[in-house]
């Protein structure tokens, strides 16, 4: 079960049990919903902006440990960053999970590195990326719920 310890690291289990920024922001400058219809995972992301800086971020939703912890750690990472920096994190996170050939500097990823093990579980990659897709939709002001399926 050593592989599983790699996937379900203490940090992930902790954020699953005690998700950070797990709240609705009201009012929110930006909001988006994400939905994985095949497994029923749902996430809502709320942003408050100051110029192009993310002053505060909150999320709500239900899903597995990977999706909940991913959303929680995303909010911790993104809070205080600019929209441009958030977009870079999105791309790097995506590359870390899906593109083995990328020459990503993993040290840059900070705590998000804890999700690098997910790439060995292809069925679970969508769990980890759902909240990030919702964040991006919020940034881009997408009104309809985004989905992991086409």
């Amino acid at each position, binding site marked *: 079960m050593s*592989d599983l310890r790699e996937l379900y690291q203490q940090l992930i289990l902790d954020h699953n049990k005690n998700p950070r920024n797990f709240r609705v922001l009201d009012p929110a400058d930006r909001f988006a919903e994400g939905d994985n219809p095949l497994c029923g995972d749902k996430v809502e992301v709320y942003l408050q902006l100051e110029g192009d800086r993310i002053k505060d971020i909150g999320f709500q939703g239900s899903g597995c*440990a990977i999706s909940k912890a991913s959303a929680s750690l995303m909010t911790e990472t993104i809070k205080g960053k600019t929209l441009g920096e958030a977009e870079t994190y999105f791309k790097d996170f995506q590359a870390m999970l899906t593109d083995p050939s990328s020459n990503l500097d993993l040290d840059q990823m900070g705590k998000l590195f804890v999700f690098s093990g997910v790439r060995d579980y292809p069925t679970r990659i969508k769990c980890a990326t759902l909240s990030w897709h919702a964040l991006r939709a919020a940034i881009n002001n997408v009104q309809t719920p985004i989905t992991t399926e086409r």
Partner: protein
Amino acid sequence: MNSPLDILTLQPPEPPARPALPFDVRRIRADFPILGQQVQGQPLVYLDNGATAQKPRAVIDALSHYYTDQNANVHRGVHHLSQIATDVYEAARRKVATFINAASDREIIFVRGTTEGINLIAQTFGREQIGEGDEIIITEMEHHSNIVPWWMLCREKGAKLRVIPMNDRGELCMDTYQTLFSPHTKLVSIVHISNVLGTVNPVEEIVQIAHAHGVPVHIDGAQAVPHQRVDVRALGCEFYTFSGHKMFAPTGIGVLYGCETYLDAMPPYQGGGSMIQSVDFDNITYGNTPNKFEAGTPNIAGSIGLGTAIDYLNSIDFDGAAKYETNLLEYAHDALRGVPDLKLIGTAERKVGVLSFTLSDIHPHDVGTILDQAGVAVRAGHHCAQPIMKHYDIPAATRASLAFYNTREDIDALVSGLHSVRKIFG
């Protein structure tokens, strides 16, 4: 009638099957090559039979034999191979008819699966017979495939769905069922065995009550045919649908049984080759049942695979297999009840080997991933039955579903995996 079926009635009957040996799970497992493999370095423990069943060697070989020695299109050529392909295709239809005790092989329509069978009824019988203000009775425990086609039809026609509720054990409230009928009720469409709860519904009684109101009945038998013998004439239903792949046959082949008087009166399904008598630009005459429902080249190999799966089931003491499965279910129930914080979803008095459950507040996808590392294959999610999830107020469940080739060791591996899940999640 100039149907290719007429030619076949002249053929000698098939030899009677050899008497089956008493059911022996070790011998049976040897018939399924996939069960010998390892997953994640562990012996495969396949407990996702409700999603699809594994295939016996005989079925796999039949597909290979068909494509190696018999492949041609059916009902068309006069050449040797075309005749053979037509013969084996129609022989498969006869095997299905005998298997479910249909009155005639004309009552067997080959479709892609249960889903297409139900859509066929909705698109033909439904669109012709169901209009504004009419009502269709379904149940709270339907798979989405027995909800969505009717919902779409209701939207199109201005008709309504009436839903038989269930209790918390996962049994239908039959008293409420009686009250759902009105002069506008046009069809009862119910699941025989729930894919989430394992509940065996009292379909005989449901049919009798519907008939007392003069209403025809469709039964979704997808989860029933792998577990028990089905006799459509004893049930008395007008329609019965099932999928090949859940009863050890290939994917992409399934059956709509319809009683002849209904099928004959129904309009065709899709238009195309095979389903016509004659075509000119001013007038088209449709073919007869079953051809009028089978436009285009059918899944010939799939039908042969299905026929072979039926031969296989007839060869193995299927009743003994069903008894074995019942014993295994009892063992599994007891074993799962010993896992702390595990809650079974579906505890009906009459049920088959389907074990859905929640484990503390651990999400089923995490449970499924951890079990997979132990070589144990289960289903995690809403099981295409979101109304059932809503009933129990859960987003998803983990499901272990049994087939007669599963063993007590499989259940032990599941339970041991669940203990690992609890350990990881503390």
